[in-house]
């Protein structure tokens, strides 16, 4: 089983990192990596960590950052905010890390950001993607390299708007902050783009509820042309499997987040038609570049599976950080942050990406396409992928400031 070896590898790596910690004291760049290896986030945190490790190995092989080797110090947040905050605090206090990253889950992200901001340590997001971190909780030590929740919802809205034959849309979302934000942003953006479309009252799914039937039936009762679902992970698997029993894909369509891990775990149980996916960084649809084939190859060699979106973002995150540190000539926050906010970055997900200074958001693109079964990979992929440029998905500075004003 691929998953089995992966867990083993990471445990070993964790041990190795910890033992080497004392020896390498002083002349390394320390990356504090707090992630949900256990708890609700564990299924995606592992991938992000694997991508990160690959980047660190590559950089170290080339001599590290500023001639210093990179040391990755991994801590498990158990996907609990108090635990994440604690681990971050310890990383800052006893390890003196230069940067914090890796966090999955909005609440843990905010807890870690609170610690990082207080300690004056740079912090960037690669998985957890609440736009609260860009708006009311934003501090100038922070940047987020993946599209935040609003941007993904905007991308979905843009995609839906292009389907001229769709007249009625039913939004659905997880009943917590991220789900609500996504549904609101989607509704708002779609109304702007297509005033003629009817958007029915959203349905919210209780977190951790395995039985989707009670949500699917009312969702279909409005006879929508498509359902937009801000749902991921196990809940999404449930929605798609149980939705088949309700004829969801004969009667309607589903627009939802389909990162590579979701495509993999659905495998052959994915419906052949009627599913449209938004992805963060699907390796098969990334713009062709020199690094991409090499990355996929070495990732497969190291972990015996295809890189997921989380792995790509983990990899990109380190590379962007490394580039900024090289440009700044220092890991110190004062030197680094202007380079982050002022620089342009190339990564696996495209060239010329920038980070806005007023909210720390990177102009990361989103990927939207229809599910298709090809022969190339042992799992379904997306076809006719629209790469939606990040710039078109972001709120303006005025809007951000207005939202900040409203929040405080």
């Amino acid at each position, binding site marked *: *089983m691929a*998953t*089995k070896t*992966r*867990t083993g590898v990471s445990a070993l790596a964790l041990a190795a990192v910890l033992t080497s910690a004392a020896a390498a004291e002083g002349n390394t760049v320390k990356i504090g990596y707090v992630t949900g*290896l*256990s*708890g*609700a986030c*564990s*299924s995606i*945190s*592992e991938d992000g960590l694997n991508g990160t490790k690959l980047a660190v190995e590559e950089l170290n092989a080339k001599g590290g950052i500023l001639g210093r080797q990179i040391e990755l110090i991994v801590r498990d947040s158990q996907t609990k905010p108090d635990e994440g905050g604690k681990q971050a605090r310890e990383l800052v206090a006893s390890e003196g890390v230069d940067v914090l990253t890796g966090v999955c889950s909005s609440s843990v992200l905010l807890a870690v950001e609170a610690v990082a901001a207080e300690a004056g340590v740079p912090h960037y997001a690669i998985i957890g993607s609440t736009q609260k971190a860009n708006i009311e909780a934003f501090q100038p030590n922070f940047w987020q390299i993946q599209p935040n929740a609003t941007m993904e919802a905007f991308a979905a809205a843009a995609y839906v708007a292009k389907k001229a034959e769709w007249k009625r849309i039913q939004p659905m979302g997880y*009943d917590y902050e991220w789900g609500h934000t996504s549904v609101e942003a989607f509704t708002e953006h779609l109304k702007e783009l297509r005033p003629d479309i009817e958007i029915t009252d959203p*349905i*919210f799914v*209780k977190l*951790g*509820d*395995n*039985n*989707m*039937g*009670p*949500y699917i039936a*009312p969702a*279909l009762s409005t006879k929508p042309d498509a359902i937009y679902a801000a749902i991921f*992970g*196990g*809940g999404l*698997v*449930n929605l798609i*499997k*149980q939705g*088949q*029993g*309700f*004829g969801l894909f004969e*009667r309607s369509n589903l627009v939802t987040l389909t990162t590579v*891990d979701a495509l993999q*775990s*659905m*495998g*052959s*149980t994915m419906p052949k038609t009627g599913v449209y996916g938004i992805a963060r960084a699907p390796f098969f649809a990334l713009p062709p570049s020199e690094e991409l084939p090499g990355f996929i190859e070495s990732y497969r060699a190291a972990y015996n599976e295809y890189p997921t979106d989380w792995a790509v973002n983990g990899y990109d995150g380190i590379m962007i950080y490394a580039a900024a540190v090289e440009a700044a000539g220092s890991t110190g926050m004062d030197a680094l942050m202007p380079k982050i906010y002022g620089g342009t970055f190339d990564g696996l997900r495209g060239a010329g990406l920038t980070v806005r200074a007023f909210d720390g958001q990177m102009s990361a693109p989103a990927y939207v396409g229809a599910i298709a079964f090809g022969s190339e990979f042992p799992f379904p992929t997306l076809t006719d992928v629209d790469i939606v440029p990040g710039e078109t998905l972001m709120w303006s500075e005025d809007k951000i400031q207005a939202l900040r004003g409203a929040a405080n």
Partner: protein
Amino acid sequence: MLFLIASGLTLIFGVSRIVNFAHGSLYMLGAFFTYALVPLIAPGTVGGFFASVLLAGLGVAAIGLIFEVIALRRVYGAPELMQLIITVALVLIIRDVVRWIWGPNSLSVPMPDAFMGALLIGDNYFPIFPFVIFGAGLAVMLVMVGVIRFTRAGILLRAGTDDRGMAALLGVNEKLIFSSVFAVGALLAGIAGGLAAPYGDVNYLLDTTVIVTAFIVVVIGGLGNLYGAFAAAMLVGITKALGILYFPRLSMVLIFLIMAAVLLARSLGRQGGPSR
């Protein structure tokens, strides 16, 4: 489905007065065992699926039995809290071991081909699989009710629930009852987990999702009361479905309120005398 889980929990509580926090973990194990077995036994067929579920249930029962003999049995005399803490320890152990073996990702158990589709009645789709689960759950329940009503094992079980000390004073080995009840409870949890596995995703966090709901059902139904558990499972299921439709934000609060109200109502009924 909820009923199967809750009935196992209520059985164990009724006889051995143990609040089994690990019941959700046993359910989860049932799901994972089924995941492992389905590809091995006639994949895709109905028979293969039910055989896998049954085997998974038996596997879970065996684990429950081992645990009972090794750990729980030693603390029957101790305060009930000890037993509770021991089952909490089991929760932690099972969760970590499952994550170790199967990894943290959500897994998907394929449904038997025959159950994939939906019934189309007029314009309404009725997915087949929930009916299958319900039917199978009902069948298991009927078998269980039969066993409990008509066999000596069932009589012993009910006698143990009434007054377990007296059963011992009639030459019945109390520990044997405890062990078998725990194993049967685990079997039910395992079968429930296995049956439900293809319907949703299977991941190592199922345990907590399940256990709180199971507790609610057991409490509403009356601790140790099998038929109560059945009624309560229905009630909770319906409340949830209606709650989602009419006041989604509060559906969980509502269920807890029902639980609190039932507990309080029961206490009023019992006022005046010492509690059992």
